[in-house]
């Protein structure tokens, strides 16, 4: 494995870790402003994180080592995700070339880790959140794979860096029907995977409507810090991916410091834009009933399938 792409991957991870709390900060701040409030500032999630790391975790009697291990596994999966997805640069690693299936399965390792964390608490809410979370993850998967199938047809590869690079070099493909449909389908599943409205309400206090929050009700202190950071990383990385598919400009094509710096700045810009957009859309939206979510996901699957059909018609 040559050193340059590996180095870029590590830069990506660092950038993502720095940006992830800010992305959440921007969404919360935007939401506050739209509601007429002042808001705590975009640095608040970072403050929350710093505080949580210093607190003493409480782990309920009767929980297994899974309660300790799962948050760390979740964090590792999110960090690995940040290394694999083309965020700052579209440089495939030689032996793990950011292949979509690998990316999805790394994502799913995190999904499973948090689902097991929810179950291990031994409370009714944890199990409930875990069950809902896994059901949605299962329904999301066909859409992800078929959407990327559509994106990979023109490129002839399922490696995300190659797909992003191809879109950057041929901007016409971004506006093609197949490209648009596939990205819309992907955007819906990103919302589902990261627990945003209308699938899940990240700021709900009502246990019975929770999905993600219900699984971490039992988690505290640094365990919660890892889970939070990992979830924020997930959101940022997936938003960054959607951003780079929609606006592939600025993604570095080489490992030279100049393009990489430019890529990092471009990523920050895209993430800021998407975070504001996400928060704005969420203000105008209510959460769907749980059993309406499959309909939404089935709709996104149809979009992805349409994208495949469209890509055949064009090809």
């Amino acid at each position, binding site marked *: 494995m040559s050193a340059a792409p590996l180095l870029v991957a590590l830069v990506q991870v660092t950038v993502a870790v720095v940006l992830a709390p800010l992305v959440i900060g921007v969404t919360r701040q935007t939401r506050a402003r739209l509601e007429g409030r002042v808001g705590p500032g975009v640095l608040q999630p970072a403050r929350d994180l710093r505080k949580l790391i210093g607190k003493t975790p409480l782990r309920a009697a*009767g929980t297994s080592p899974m309660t300790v291990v799962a948050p760390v596994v979740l964090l590792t999966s999110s960090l690995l995700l940040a290394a694999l997805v083309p965020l700052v640069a579209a440089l495939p690693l030689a032996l793990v070339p950011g292949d979509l299936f690998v990316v999805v399965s790394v994502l799913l390792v995190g999904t499973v880790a948090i689902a*097991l964390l929810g179950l291990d608490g031994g409370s009714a809410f944890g199990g409930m959140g875990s069950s809902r979370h896994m059901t949605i993850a299962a329904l999301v998967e066909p859409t992800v794979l078929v959407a990327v199938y559509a994106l990979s047809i023109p490129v002839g590869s399922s490696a995300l860096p190659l797909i992003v690079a191809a879109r950057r070099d041929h901007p016409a493909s971004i506006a093609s029907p197949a490209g648009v449909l596939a990205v819309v389908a992907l955007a819906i599943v990103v919302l589902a995977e990261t627990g945003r409205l209308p699938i899940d309400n990240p700021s709900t206090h009502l246990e019975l409507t929770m999905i993600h929050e219900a699984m971490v009700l039992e988690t505290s202190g640094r365990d919660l810090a890892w889970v939070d950071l990992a979830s924020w990383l997930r959101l940022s990385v997936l938003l960054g991916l959607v951003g780079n598919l929609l606006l592939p400009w600025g993604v570095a094509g080489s490992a030279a410091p100049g393009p990489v710096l430019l890529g990092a700045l471009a990523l920050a810009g895209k993430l800021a834009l998407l975070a504001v957009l996400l928060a704005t859309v969420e203000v105008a939206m209510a959460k769907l009933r749980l059993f309406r979510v499959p309909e939404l996901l089935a709709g996104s699957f149809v979009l992805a399938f349409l994208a495949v059909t469209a890509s055949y018609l064009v090809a």
Partner: protein
Amino acid sequence: MTALAGGLLAQGALATLAVLVAVSARGRARNLLAGVACAALSAAGAVSGALALSGATVTLRMATALPGAELVLAPDRLGGLLMLLVGSVGFLASVYAIGYVHGASASRTQWAALALFLLGMQLVPAAGDVVAFLLAWELMAAASTVLVLAEQAHRPAARQAAVWYAVMTHLSFVLLLAGFAALSATGGTTSFAGLAGTDAARPGATAAFVLLVVGFAAKAGVAPLHVWLPRAHPEAPSHASALMSAAMVSLGAYGILLVGIRLLPGGPTWWSVLLTALGAGSAVHGILHAGVATDLKRLLAYSTSENLGLVVAAIGLTMLLRTHHVPGAAGAALVAALLLLVSHAAFKSTLFLGAGAVLRATGERDLDRMGGLAHAMPWTAATFGVGSLGAAALPVTGGFVAEWTLLQALIHGVRPADRVVAVVVPLTLGLIALTAGLALVTFVKAFGIAFLARARSVTALAATEAPPSMRAAMVLGAVGVLALGVLPGPVAAAAASAIGVDGVRVAGLGGVELTGVGAVLSPAALVGLGAVVALPALALVLVVARRRPATTDVLGWGCGGVRTSPRMQYNATSYAEPVMRIFDDALQPRRDVVVTHVGESAYLAERVRFAQHHDDVVEVRLYRPLVAAADALADRARRVQNGSVNRYLAFSFTALVVVLLVVVA
């Protein structure tokens, strides 16, 4: 005499020895001696398989009592791969059985049947002609029926299961007999070498293909012929379940490979579409039922139906892509089929052995009554967890690599000009993705409900860890699952050479490179990258953990609730409730809610009783009418048989006259 011939003969000798030991040894000595003999038999099978896989050839001919019919054992490389697979699973199961068997499953008959079952399974892929194949097949079928019957004395369900199994397996045998008869008539010989590459356009080829595929699909547990699986696997002793579910069904898939790839290649498009549809349908059906199952072994049985469905779909896709000249993707699909088989064997045997350990420790198969077993059974929990990762196709396990290969084949099998390919490939991709997603739910449920949180019953609370021989087998299985996942390159390359696919290379440290489709995956590199990014995080975690140790003696948070009973936890039924609701058209559950009110009040409930039951729709819609019809027919036929000797003599006489007429004519 070559080493391979020696290996084959040693299997026969060791099987005889195992049967003799099983019959003659007494008490605990029998378990140990017979277990060691069976393990040796399997090891001989695995070694012979490895030899055949590496290219050794031999042809053993044995004369039979019938003139002109001889038994030929001539394992090819694919057969070697299967023999290695069956031998490895057999070794695990034999070692496990030493500590596991007790009561009825430790009897002379059971040990002897186990040895014969192992021998039958190891000889099926060694068979070089139809006669030897069918004989070994029948040995395997009969011996496994005896194993299913192990606990029939105190569990009537075992008898029912054995009847279903015997009927289905012999139905399959009859179909195979007819299919091979048609094929031999078409090809003019009974040896596989002579039949290889038979022209699919010849008359009789279509009939042979359909009969053989249906026969093998029944053995592989592919829906709608899977009905025996969810009955026989839970009732058989766990080492036998592991053998049946990990090794025997693989031989069904081997049969389909034999027919579709070796004996009758180049069939029309509808053959491959039939196989793909059968496989993908079975995958979705199997995993849906596994997802809502609460009996752990039943869940695993349905998951077998799912995995074998994926294998059959991969074989179908291979044939489809070959017909439409996409050799790179076709090769990848075929390698994916083999990798799926191998990884399934590894994780499913681990899972069944783990389920057996739980059953032995708690007497429970019902997930709703388990929980918290990770505390008392850490070894079982860890190995079952690894097996679950494999079944959920997550990195870094063999299941993940196999599924990755299959998805690579699908994504590169793009042929917009071919209408069939353009429709079949993305649809199959969607179905496989749905299957993979539901597999996640299923195995998070299986592992999380059984091993995490708090015990849901007294028996689960009193569980103890399994004895050393069982632990050793489970650990070996889990190591296999991980080894296939971290270093899949050599396995993939061997599988590719076994089936004559080029374009699979070892990349980096044990990685897979599919040169035909230009894809590469090195799980070892992925692990390395994960370690690099995780190390700083891990260091931070450890530093922080040292500074502020956790408090671990608090109550779980239940919204300030003062009563916390383990029964308040989610259980397997409630975990699967969203899946059940979303797919209720396919699963058709029946719910029964009885509310007992307090006195006259309509608002206060004294107790609520909830019962949910679901049948397999295929069984209700397809098999019940068939069984009813068979019953009615049998009733009619009974009139012919009224006990009168004169009538029976008349029957014999008529039959003889007919035979005479046929011979003369």
